């Protein structure tokens, strides 16, 4: 293997990792604040991709212009979903909560299939296949602009989200609710409102990731479950469930691990790499790389 090829693979892994990070941030945030594993998370990513397709076909908007609107729409949809189905579920045992988010996931897949049909679609951006090429270590490295933009924006948005959590009143309220909902309530924080915002925000981030990658992947209603849910689970477990920075770091690690694993096992076996990491984490690092700290 040449050095250039290795660099190419690592960079590709890093780009994929950036997207993983943004998807996983939303998942880990929801878990951290509400202690709910959102099995419907990947469906919100798929929804973001389909909305990008509609924005492109109907209004001629490219996915990057449409992204803020898609985030806003899914934020609202997510908040509504939380109000109607997640909130009443919080007082039931865990298995009911999980089955409810699974029900939500199935419902969303069905609705997307009704609205957009079961077949593969893509945003036909004219420069979707354009690449950024440069020479390094005596070989050529070529990266697709779409993936490059997606990863850079994803990491920037995740950084912004981290800043919001750390330095705004609402962000602090979210972190307080994550640490101790009862104490947060006693301090005058409206925890149900925080839950609403958190779920909307988390699912909005997933949809935003979907919009960003929509020119690069063919999407169908089960796209999210097929390609993202396992990686997202592994990342939040690796980065300690509920830990926002952990999800960022974990996303990048898993992205690169999959790229390297793909090299040795074949590209299609990437998910197997994720699963192996899952097993290793469960066996040797059961509390994740941040040792169980939530924020």
């Amino acid at each position, binding site marked *: 293997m040449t050095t250039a090829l290795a660099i190419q693979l690592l960079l590709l892994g890093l780009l994929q990792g950036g997207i993983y990070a943004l998807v996983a941030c939303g998942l880990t945030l929801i878990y951290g604040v509400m202690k709910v594993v959102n099995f419907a998370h990947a469906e919100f990513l798929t929804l973001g991709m389909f909305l990008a397709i509609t924005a492109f076909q109907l209004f001629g908007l490219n996915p990057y212009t449409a992204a803020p609107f898609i985030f806003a729409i899914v934020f609202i949809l997510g908040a509504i979903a939380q109000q109607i189905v997640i909130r009443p579920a919080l007082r039931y045992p865990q298995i009911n909560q999980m089955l409810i988010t699974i*029900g939500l996931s199935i419902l969303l897949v069905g609705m997307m299939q009704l609205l957009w049909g079961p077949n593969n679609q893509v945003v036909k951006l004219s420069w979707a296949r354009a690449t950024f090429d440069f020479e390094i270590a005596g070989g050529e490295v070529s990266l697709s602009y779409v993936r490059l933009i997606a990863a850079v924006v994803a990491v920037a948005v995740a950084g912004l989200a981290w800043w919001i959590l750390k330095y705004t009143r609402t962000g602090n309220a979210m972190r307080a609710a994550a640490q101790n909902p009862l104490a947060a309530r006693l301090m005058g924080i409206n925890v149900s409102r925080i839950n609403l915002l958190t779920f909307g925000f988390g699912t909005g981030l997933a949809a935003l990731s979907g919009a960003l990658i929509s020119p690069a992947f063919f999407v169908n209603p089960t796209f999210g479950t*097929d390609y993202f849910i396992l990686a997202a689970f592994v990342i939040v477990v690796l980065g300690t469930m509920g830990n926002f920075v952990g999800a960022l770091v974990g996303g990048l690690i898993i992205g690169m691990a999959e790229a390297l694993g793909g090299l040795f096992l074949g590209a299609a076996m990437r998910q197997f790499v994720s699963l192996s990491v899952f097993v290793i984490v469960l066996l040797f690092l059961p509390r994740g790389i941040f040792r169980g700290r939530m924020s």
Partner: protein
Amino acid sequence: MKMSNWLDWQLIVSGIFIAAIAAIGVSSTSDYVVQILVLATIYAAVALSWSIAGGLGGLLLLGFISFYGIGAYTNGILFTKYGISPWINIVLAAGFAGLLGWLIAAVTLRYELSEDYFAMFTVGLSQALKIVLLNSEYFGRATGIYITIVKDDWAMMSFVSRKPYLLIALLILVVIIAASYWIQRSTFGFRLAAVRQNSRAAEALGINPVKTKIQAIIVSGALGGSVGAFYSQFVTFIDPKQVFSLATNFEMLLGAVLGGRLTLIGPILGAATLKPLQDVLRGVFGGEADALYLVLYGALLIVSCLALPKGIAFYIEKWHRKRYGNS
């Protein structure tokens, strides 16, 4: 066996139910009806297998389809490549699936990890298994495995007609009902209930919660695997996307949840309602039926978890208690 005992009552009612299905199937002239009855029986059998760990054990064994898929491939490979009889493969499939259950338990139940990890791991595993099989030459990649049946042969569980399969499916269901019934009356069943209700208290009474959970996963998985093996022989065609499908997985679980996952008749009742419902929808809506069915059963799953957290069977149990005035 007394009608006044809730568990016995369920066993008797399930027996009558199975006899009725058998009678309908055998006297039916339509292959289509028999096909639906077999599939409904398979779903009931899987739901009931799951309910041992997922219901009685209270474990978040959400990715149950792994066991079913492993079972389906066990028969697919052994039958087509080595000509081994499905009767043997069903038992071997139970072995492989049980082994998988033990491995899952060994990885996830260490260090008293939170149940969330367990749930996410089982779901992730089913999808990873799907990917591995999709990329393995030996298992036929995405094309899957075709089982060719040319003539009737009891020893090889091969029939041109669909009817014998219904009888075998019902036989499998009877075995699983018997297993669940026996478990609910045995000390193992009581240990499961204790661990489900309060793991710490159970431990204080000298029950090993981890060991009990591992046993439940192995039993559930083994039963699910043998149903999968039969399924592959029945449909004669399997591919990874079908036998490791998360949609199918949750559809089977919904049967158990909607019916009542802590009971014997609940999972049977749930599967018996849902599977024919799907086919009615398909008849009414045609091409869009699959999507509508997804919407409907997603909504049903949510509503049944919120409104009927204990399932339909809970209300039957209430009626039973009133009717017989005891236990």
